[in-house]
């Protein structure tokens, strides 16, 4: 990769950290829409009991962000390979 690309990627990493900070620290009270929909279901049908549970649930608070990051990394790896193959094709 060229030096310019490294600078771009580093800037991208910093941007990620900034967005991460903004998304999680500046808006800690922001609840997910699925959590809100569960609350609404409980209001509309107070007697409704969920009839199934997740097969795997992690108690550790760090597990979920790490697994979502893993999901993103898998996707990024494939896209990185695609970009690399396209650049080789052009060259």
């Amino acid at each position, binding site marked *: 990769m060229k030096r310019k690309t490294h600078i771009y990627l580093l800037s991208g990493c910093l941007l990620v950290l900034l967005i991460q900070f903004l*998304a999680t620290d500046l808006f800690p009270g922001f609840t997910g*829409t699925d959590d809100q929909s569960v609350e609404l279901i409980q209001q*509309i049908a107070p007697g409704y009991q969920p009839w199934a549970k997740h097969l795997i649930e992690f108690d550790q608070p760090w597990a979920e962000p790490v697994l979502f990051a893993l999901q993103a990394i898998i996707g*990024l790896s494939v896209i990185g390979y695609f970009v690399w193959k396209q650049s080789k*094709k052009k060259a």
Partner: protein
Amino acid sequence: MNKNTLAYLGLALLLPGVANSMHIAEGFLPASWCIGWWAVYLAVLIAGFSSLKKTIGEHPNAKLLFAAVGAYVFILSSLKLPSVAGSSSHLTGIALGALLFGASSMSVVGLIVLLFQALLLAHGGLTTLGANGFSMAVCGAFSAVWAFRLLKGLKAPQWLAVGSASFVSNLVIYSCTSAQLAVAFADSTASFTSNLIKFLSIFAVTQLPLAAIEAVFTVLAFQYIQRTSNAEIQQLNPNLYETKNTHIPA
């Protein structure tokens, strides 16, 4: 857009924040509805798998492109963003693949993403995967294709047609989820319409700005693919760039 820009996009999407997805949570849909949605989704999934197998068989060079559009969904659906009204939600990324490979083929991608999230991340669920898959990978994909066709029919520029397809797709996914929940919990005390308004007030309002962000991402990604994989696109969809007779395989 060059490859560096795409690299940014990828990095910008790598947000390790806790994601609260658009999925209906495990067990939060009555069993009869779960079975019904699974049946509908399975039908589309079989058609999608068959269509994809045929496409890849005819155009083996498009395998990597399909992996890339699948990865795009993988990344975008891992991303949580704060939105209006103190809520946060997700992008989906379904439109890009639907425009390139046809709407039904995205049901395969949807299955992989939703299984990953249901099994490992405790988001969505196996019982509700049929409903979630139908809203995300079926309604989202078909609405993207139809919006694209409409805009191209109106002679809109390519970027506007792609962006609108993505925007519409994102909103339709959440509207469909709202309708699924509204109909499942409709009874004598809570009508479908009143439920729908309540669920839409959660999902649709949150999604509006996020759908606009996704539209920008999708236009940039589409332009990159158009520039670097034009030969594959021409093989997959010879008329994709045409104003008239725009045809995208279902």
